């Protein structure tokens, strides 16, 4: 069977995504003598050959420093870097490329906003609002600047299904809140946040919203203007791209007013000892030589996602998630952790009297990779009174056979502990 494409040069329908599996070399290998079943894309996704090839092509043909030289290679490197920025801008439907800042990843993006946007505005009367569902990287940067300024970090509660209680979060917003920082999708539970309501409510109080989009970006179409988020952070390595590269989207108006986060080359127009003139957006926030090959890889990853079609990916992963949930529920002793009404690509679970680490080892032995432990979301685990969970997460390259192998793998776990 060959791939067929629609008029937008996207794969015609989601049933064809199965055919893409062959593009992912890491997926097509044996682990512990079994064909790999990779169910840990929420931690880091695998790269298609097209992305690997583009990184290699860039490194072997176009590499030099960006924005610095008059020679051909420097020009080509700059072109690769800026084309990728343009690509990302279109992918999330930002207004223009001034709003697209290259960072090293979600964590770096959040720290940038914490230090450049929030910190100058904080004092003991001010608050930052997050939720109980956050990844450590959307908790600790806020704790750090609150410690430094005396501001308070306030935390909106979640319910037993693992969803943010939207009304309570909205009730906590007032004019002393400097920023609301919430995840789009929880990495531990897969719950999707009701962003529209939260962003509307925050804007009524003129409070901006940062969305941690690390888990959302490769699973659904993001239209940043429709969403109306003020900042949106994501990482290349969770969207079929390389590690060490990520994006901070910010509304131009907000970014304009923010001081630089780090100082160095590229972020300046003129340096004198009497004072330095900063460069314009987006370069003001990109001090030093950036991760150019990472940007090349991320651009190629976006091309790949575009061609697969985000709506196809969403449909494909939704079918698999529903199957996974249904099959998991049939396994003796399994308890699903996280039962959000709107859940994407992730399911956490426990098995009665078996620690998640043991589940992970026994599955790995059968070539099945899942994540176990606290998933960098210790407050979520504490909420459920658990030291950790086992978590299976999906991506474009997974198929039904993966789910069947995973469920069969769990039988072995239960057998060993019987």
């Amino acid at each position, binding site marked *: 069977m060959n791939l067929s494409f629609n008029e937008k040069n996207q794969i015609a329908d989601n049933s064809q995504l199965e055919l893409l599996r062959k593009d992912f070399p890491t997926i097509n290998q044996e682990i512990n003598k079994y064909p790999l079943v990779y169910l840990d894309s929420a931690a880091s996704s695998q790269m298609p050959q097209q992305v690997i090839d583009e990184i290699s092509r860039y490194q072997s043909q176009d590499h030099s420093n960006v924005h610095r030289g008059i020679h051909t290679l420097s020009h080509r490197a700059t072109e690769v870097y800026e084309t990728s920025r343009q690509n990302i801008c279109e992918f999330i439907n930002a207004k223009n490329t001034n709003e697209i800042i290259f960072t090293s990843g979600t964590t770096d993006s959040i720290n940038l906003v914490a230090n450049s946007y929030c910190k100058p505005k904080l004092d003991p009367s001010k608050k930052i609002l997050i939720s109980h569902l956050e990844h450590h990287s959307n908790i600790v940067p806020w704790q750090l600047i609150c410690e430094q300024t005396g501001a308070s970090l306030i935390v909106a509660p979640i319910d037993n299904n693992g969803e943010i209680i939207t009304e309570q979060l909205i009730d906590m917003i007032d004019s002393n809140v400097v920023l609301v920082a919430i995840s789009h999708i929880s990495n531990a539970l897969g719950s999707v946040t009701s962003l529209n309501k939260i962003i509307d409510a925050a804007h009524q109080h003129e409070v901006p919203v940062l969305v941690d989009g690390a888990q959302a970006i490769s699973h659904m179409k993001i239209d940043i203007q429709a969403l109306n988020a003020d900042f949106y952070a994501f990482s290349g390595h969770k969207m079929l791209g390389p590690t060490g590269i990520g994006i901070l989207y910010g509304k131009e108006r907000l970014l304009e007013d923010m001081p630089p986060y780090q100082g160095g080359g590229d972020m300046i127009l003129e340096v004198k000892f009497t004072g330095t003139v900063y460069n314009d957006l987006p370069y003001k926030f990109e001090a030093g030589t950036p991760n150019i090959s990472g940007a090349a890889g991320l651009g190629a990853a976006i091309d790949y996602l575009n061609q697969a079609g985000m709506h196809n990916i969403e449909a494909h992963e939704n079918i698999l998630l529903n199957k996974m949930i249904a099959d998991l529920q049939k396994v003796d002793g399994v308890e699903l952790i996280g039962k959000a009404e709107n859940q994407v690509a992730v399911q956490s679970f426990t098995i009665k009297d078996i*620690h998640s680490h043991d589940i992970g*080892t026994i599955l790995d032995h059968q070539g099945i990779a899942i994540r176990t432990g606290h998933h960098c979301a210790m407050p979520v685990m504490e909420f459920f009174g658990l030291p950790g969970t086992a978590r299976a997460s999906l991506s474009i390259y997974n198929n039904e056979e993966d789910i069947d192998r995973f469920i069969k793998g769990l039988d072995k776990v239960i057998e060993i502990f019987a």
Partner: protein
Amino acid sequence: MKKNNSENKSLKELYRQLIIHHAKNPLNFGKLSNNSLLSEGINPLCGDKIRIYLKINEADTIENLTFEGTGCAISIASASLMTSTLLNMKKYQANQYALDLISNLNESKSQEGQQPMMDSQEIHALEGVKDFPSRIKCATLSWQTFISALNNNKITTTEK
């Protein structure tokens, strides 16, 4: 799916019946009341925490030794074996025993001239972790925490 016997064998070595038994029915599980030394061990990799309670008498003998906490089968079984093995030993003996065990588990299986594993058959069961590098810390956590309790340190981690 084809079965791979040697692979299954090492899994059986890791999860021996004895380990599963200790994990399900740990010995010396619980708090010790006053006058005991207390140390907490953390494996930040998985968030597992173990607390060791230790009482040493005037003759420098381990009079009582218990543990509490959550953990995987390996770490609970190891703590159970640790408390039962070290009980009634002299302080210096127990310290050396724990040090030897940790270094033994960290030595690769094939290493020549390796010290024979401890005398006790039961402790031998922990050697199954050697085929699972990511699980060695699960087995050493309680022993490391014991040493830290002996030295009056309140907290230790596997990531040092």
